Each structure stands twice: as C-alpha cells, then as structure tokens.
C-alpha cells in the first residue's frame, strides 16, 4: 500500500545542472522569477537569503490581482551545496527539506519534503502514522461524507 513517502513530498525533474538549480533556490535574483505561484509575485527587494545554518530566508509574496501580501520568515537549518537545503518556519513549525539529485545528462531531480508538525509532537508512533502518507490521507478525507 503506502510507499516510503512521509508527509508532503513534491518531486520534479529539471533540464539543468544541479549547481545551477541549487543557485536558483538560494539566490534572490533567481528566486524572484519563480518563488510565487501563478498570479503571485515575489519582489526582489523583499527576499533575504543568508544561506548558512541559522541564516534567514525571508520572502514576501504579493498577489498580483489585489496586492495582498504573504510574508514568510524561515531560518536555514542546513545548507549543503549543491545537494541539500533545509529551512524551518518558526511561526508555523513547517520544516522543508530540498534534495537535489544529479541525474547526469544535465538533468536534476528536486525533491521537496515537508514536515509540518513541530518536533515535540512527533513520537515514533506518530512518525509511523505519517509514513502512510498524509497527502493521500487528505485526498481520502476530502471524499468522506
């Protein structure tokens, strides 16, 4: 049944060398081009990145239609160029791990793994529960009733 996916996992393969993809994830000049989802901008001047453990990772997403702002403050936990980035959002307890895999042939797989539960809640029992994939569980729950 469930694969090894814990919590929320998003994976995508990009046609670019790993070093370049990694730079895109930590350099404001790149982040400003893609960080906001559709219809949302992330102005260059709102992006602060200090890519080292304990350094800040701050962004402000701005809705193009109505100007509403979504500031997100995070702190880097781990920065291992060019393969691994971990940051945590103190306000929400969300920890995001980005793993970059060199597929050869100038292609890179990016895997985003998010743990959205503060560590103090994560008993071994709870972790085992999450391995059944919270993502799939949500789809199931949405169908109930």
């Amino acid at each position, binding site marked *: 049944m469930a694969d090894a996916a814990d919590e929320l996992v*998003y994976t995508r393969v990009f046609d670019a060398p790993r070093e370049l*993809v990694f730079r895109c994830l930590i350099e404001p000049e*790149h982040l400003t081009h893609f960080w906001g*989802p*559709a219809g949302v901008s992330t102005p260059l001047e709102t992006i602060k990145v200090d890519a080292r453990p304990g350094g800040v990772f701050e962004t402000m997403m701005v809705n193009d239609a109505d100007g509403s702002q979504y500031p997100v403050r995070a702190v880097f936990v781990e920065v291992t160029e060019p393969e691994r980035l971990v940051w945590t959002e103190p306000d929400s307890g969300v920890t995001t791990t980005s793993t970059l895999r060199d597929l050869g042939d100038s292609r890179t797989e990016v895997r985003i793994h998010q743990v959205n539960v503060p560590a103090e*809640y994560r008993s071994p*029992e709870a972790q085992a*529960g999450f391995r059944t994939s919270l993502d799939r*569980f949500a789809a199931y729950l949405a169908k*109930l009733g």
Partner: protein
Amino acid sequence: MTAQYRLDATFAALADPTRRAMVERLARGDATVNELAAPFAMTLPGISKHLKVLEQCGLISRTRNAQFRPCHLERAALDSAVGWIEENRRIWTERFEKLDRHLRDIQSTDQTRGDDDRG
C-alpha cells in the same frame, strides 16, 4: 489557540492510526465512546485519551449534557487541514512550473553570454 497552532495539532492528531480510524468512523455519523472503542483492543481510559487529543485540536466535539456524550466530527477543522495540504501542493506545483521556465530562460541566455556570471 491560534489557527496555525490548531492546524499543527490537527496534523499531529491525525498522525495516529487509531485516531484516524475514529475520525473515519465519525465521518459516518456521531458515536458514543463505547461505540468508538468497539473495534479496538484498548481500555476505555486509552480510548478517552485519544478522544481528548481529537477534542483539543477541534476535530471532534462532545455533547456536555447527554448521559452518553456522543462524539461529533467537526468538518470545518478537517476541511482546514485538507485545504492547507491542497493549497501547499498547488504552490509547489506552480513554483516548479515557473522554475522550469526560468531555468530554460537563463540557460539559453548563458549560451550567448558565456560563463561570466559564474563567479
């Protein structure tokens, strides 16, 4: 309880298989503690502990005045958890789309400009 704390607590509550089974049962209708306990080889105090966790994060409510205090699933709390996950998935999907385009753009520019921005 703040909205974010409540959401965290909701995910923590749903991380447990027994509590998920209880939520699934309650999705079919209200149930008493005894009814909820029936499928599990667990003592009533054990069951009560799980119910307390579900109650604290707002996923279920219990009638205060009835003798058997049936448990009721609060769909809004469940919806907010499901909504958070769906919104999060949308953000990353669209972010990846944009990153894909951005990588194509800068790589086609790089070829004409050379390696001068590689520090």
